[in-house]
């Protein structure tokens, strides 16, 4: 009976010192861009581009996003950390056809139907989100250290701006489409991503990472597209105000 207790106490004493360290905090400010594969949606107000291409012609497109974040990071061990915070993301998309323009059905009034020739529709959706990320750093001793990150962001849409580019050659400036008629992106999106990067410095540090894969699990960041493809990106982070470990 005494021997198992003695062994358990020995094992506890042999546990890695790192689990006994008080959590270390830091503040991260980061900026980056990501792109995600997308498919143009079908709309009943856009004339088909070609035979049997559903309606609007599904084409390989991308949605480009830029983001800026401020994120406190908590080092649970000297290698493993958790961060969250606030992120502002701007997602831009571009809708067009294979031809120089496409026909947009603006309205129907009795026997009259009105089309406009449109070059493209550009849309920018701005989201405010709460990221949640886990990071594993290979070295925590201040030398340049590779790391791996995975995470998600709970994005909530704030604003949408749609710009309609009319075909200048034909456009009658006295008539136009109300941009409110252009569908907006989903109010909530949930991108998930993994990343690999390298951190330079210890208490104040700088890191660069490549994000891949990047995919949107819920919602779409464009009213004109489905965010249904894979993507990736690049992020740079400056870390400061790192508290020192007490051990």
């Amino acid at each position, binding site marked *: 009976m005494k021997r198992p207790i003695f062994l358990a106490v020995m094992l506890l004493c042999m546990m890695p010192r790192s689990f006994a360290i008080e959590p270390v905090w830091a503040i991260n400010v980061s900026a980056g861009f990501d792109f995600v594969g997308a498919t143009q949606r079908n709309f009943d107000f856009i*004339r088909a581009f070609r*035979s*049997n291409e559903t309606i609007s012609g599904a084409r390989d497109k991308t949605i480009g996003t830029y983001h800026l974040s401020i994120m406190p990071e908590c080092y649970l061990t000297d290698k493993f950390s958790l961060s969250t915070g606030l992120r502002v993301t701007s997602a831009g998309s571009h809708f067009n*056809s294979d031809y120089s323009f496409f026909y947009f059905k603006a309205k129907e009034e009795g026997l009259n*139907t009105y*089309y*406009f020739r449109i070059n493209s529709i550009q849309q920018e959706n701005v989201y405010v989100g709460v990221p949640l990320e886990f990071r594993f750093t290979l070295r925590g001793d201040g030398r340049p250290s590779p790391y791996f990150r995975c995470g998600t962001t709970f994005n909530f849409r704030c604003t949408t701006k749609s710009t309609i580019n009319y075909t200048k050659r034909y456009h009658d400036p006295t008539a136009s489409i109300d941009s409110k008629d252009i569908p907006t992106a989903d109010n909530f999106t949930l991108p998930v991503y993994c990343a690999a990067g390298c951190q330079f410095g210890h208490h104040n540090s700088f890191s660069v990472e490549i994000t891949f894969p990047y995919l949107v699990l819920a919602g779409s960041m464009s009213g004109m597209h489905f965010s249904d493809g894979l993507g990736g990106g690049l992020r740079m982070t400056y870390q400061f105000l790192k508290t020192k470990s007490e051990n």
Partner: protein
Amino acid sequence: MKKTLILCMAACLFAACEDNLERSIWISDPDDFNLPKYTEWGYNTFGAKMDGSYFLSCWRENPCSMEWHANDSTLEFTMNGCQTLNDYMVFDGYITKKDYMSLTIIFPCDSVIDNYKKLYLLDGKTIDLTDTTVKVLVTLESHNYWTEPITDIRSGELCFKRIQNLYVDGKFEESIVSGTFDIRYVKDGEKTRMSDGRFDIGINQSFFW
């Protein structure tokens, strides 16, 4: 000479990049992929089932035309297409084995429709093809392109479900004529039936005489 050739090629390339309203856009009917879906966009398609084959627009630009006969106040509506042959296949309206065929329906009008901008007067109109004032003509490649009147029509109707005056960028461009048709007739002792017929065409100045 070289410059002229380059400019011509550039013009042709640019023209090819324009989305022309006269193009035929085939959207297959989900219930029968050999037929175009009934649409009201002016996609320049038509189709009908025909006793084991199909009468289709087969990729033509503006497969239909209209002509006003002032002498007897009749309007002539012609669908130019093809009839599928045995072992045919249909790919987005393109048919691998076919014979030329056209169907012409001439019917009286209460109002004068002497240009394409007045086609809205047909909106919602149904023409009874068994009416003695209505003439139906068929032209077949297999009959040496001879246009033959159909005299023994058992039943049939041509329905103009919707006519739209189409304005593009504020300018009147064409009339979109959409509807359905079916006909049962006997010719040379042979019974023929066209059913589930539908058309969706844009008629502008070039295709209204």
